[in-house]
């Protein structure tokens, strides 16, 4: 597969489970290496990053997961500050940056709560805040709304759109049809490890529709 995603784009990555979405995401965050080919981010091939270079690459991208991946023993504030602490950022700067990002995701009043005291939507907003704390150019969201009810889903999507408007490239992997259809953004459909469609203003496509399309063409 070959795909080019431009700076500041908001791309939805769709396809059934096992289609290769997750593998693509894992390759983008350098968790997995491609068997062949390359992944260029800002003209740099991340497939050949050495293991000691990985941490520095990961500080430049933000990642959000379906299961949030928050540390249960740390408060909201500490979870976000943790990403800065491991990156050798000074305590003074941490005290400055964490409140800003908390207000961006609208959780200023929950700073001292533990993840277990938050709703699913709030947890995901903490995860997004943590992903954005390094001011990354790219935010990768792997099924961020998979565990959320429809109402909360829109909150999160709206937050992602807002982040996208500020110039951050957003790659959203999802199989939520309603979300994709409403976004009216570029949609890349993946199946069996191949790109089956790539449309500028796309809708969620199911494999049968593609098959029908191909038959008519």
């Amino acid at each position, binding site marked *: 597969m070959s795909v080019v995603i431009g700076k500041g784009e908001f791309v939805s990555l769709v396809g059934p489970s096992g289609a290769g979405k997750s593998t693509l995401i894992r390759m983008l965050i350098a968790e997995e290496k491609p068997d062949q080919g390359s992944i260029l981010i800002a003209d740099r091939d991340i497939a050949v990053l050495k293991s000691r270079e990985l*941490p*520095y690459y*990961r500080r430049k991208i933000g990642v959000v997961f379906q299961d949030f991946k928050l540390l249960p023993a740390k408060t909201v504030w500490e979870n976000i500050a943790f990403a800065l602490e*491991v990156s050798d950022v000074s305590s003074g700067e941490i005290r400055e940056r964490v409140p800003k990002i908390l207000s961006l995701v609208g959780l200023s009043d929950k700073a001292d709560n533990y993840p277990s005291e938050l709703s699913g939507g709030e947890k995901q907003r903490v995860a997004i805040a943590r992903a954005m704390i390094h001011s990354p150019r790219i935010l990768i969201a792997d099924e961020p709304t998979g565990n959320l009810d429809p109402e909360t889903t829109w909150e999160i999507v709206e937050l992602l759109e807002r982040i996208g408007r500020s110039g951050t490239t957003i790659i959203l992997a999802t199989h939520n049809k309603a979300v994709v259809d409403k976004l009216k953004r570029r949609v890349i459909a993946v199946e069996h490890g191949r790109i089956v469609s790539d449309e500028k203003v796309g809708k969620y496509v199911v494999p049968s529709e593609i098959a029908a399309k191909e038959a008519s063409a």
Partner: protein
Amino acid sequence: MSLRSLGRVIRLGLTNFWRNWWLSIASVLVMAVTLFIIGVFAIQTVVILKTTEGIQDKLDLSVYFNDDVADQSIQDIRTSVANRPDVKSVEFVSKEKAYEIFQQRPTSEKIKSLITPENNPLPRSLVIKAEDPSQLSVIAKTFESGQFEQMVRRISYQDNQNVVDTLVQTESTVRRNGIVLALIFILLSFLLVYNTTRIVILSRSDEIEIMRLVGATEAFVRWPFIVEAGLYGVLGGLLAYGALFLFLRYDLASAVPLLSIANFLAPDMQAFFIRFFAPILIVITMAGMLIASIMSSFAVRKFVRL
């Protein structure tokens, strides 16, 4: 790693220690037991070596001369014996000196009064110490023949032969067993710490994954575990030290058949322990810290893939 990160890594290690306090306590106890046993064997070995050294130093060969031998002849013999390479020292005991020694012996006054400086049947003698006490018999042999036969009244080393043999044998046995046992327990402690760290790491795989995802470097992920293990070692060392103190203070060695020699040497071990209070504490604690951090760094290397 910057000083700031170092501080954070140490704090993280300490926090993790308290967060999993049950696992930490178990690890500390494991360290303590191991260090305690190593400590007992180490002290026992040192004390036995010191004791045999002391006893060996007391072993000597006395050659008593007939009263008709001239002083000068004895002095000549003394000089020639002192020149032998296997002889450590030769001391001449005159009649007067022999009398003094006799008076100091713990015998009854009645027997003591039998001998006076004027009427002194005690013989003159040469007291010979060998470089290697097991060689005393060889030295003694030279006095049993030839020119000496007429001069020597008695040679008193035979009494020592058994003691020398037993001591030499005990010492090498103790040294060998002590080293083997200490090695076994050190190996055991290595494996236990390794396994403990492995459990701690596996129980925190989620946390490690998150650290990696938010951009923590290898060192930042690994070092808190090593700090934590170091703490097991230090606390285990302190506990082992306290246990060692109680063990010796209340003579508990007798309760452990394996340590029967320790039992026999308990007072000496106690004295040794009290005399080297601080060094023993430092050695045990440092040993604990080293064992724990080395093994945990192995475990971390193996189980934390980045």
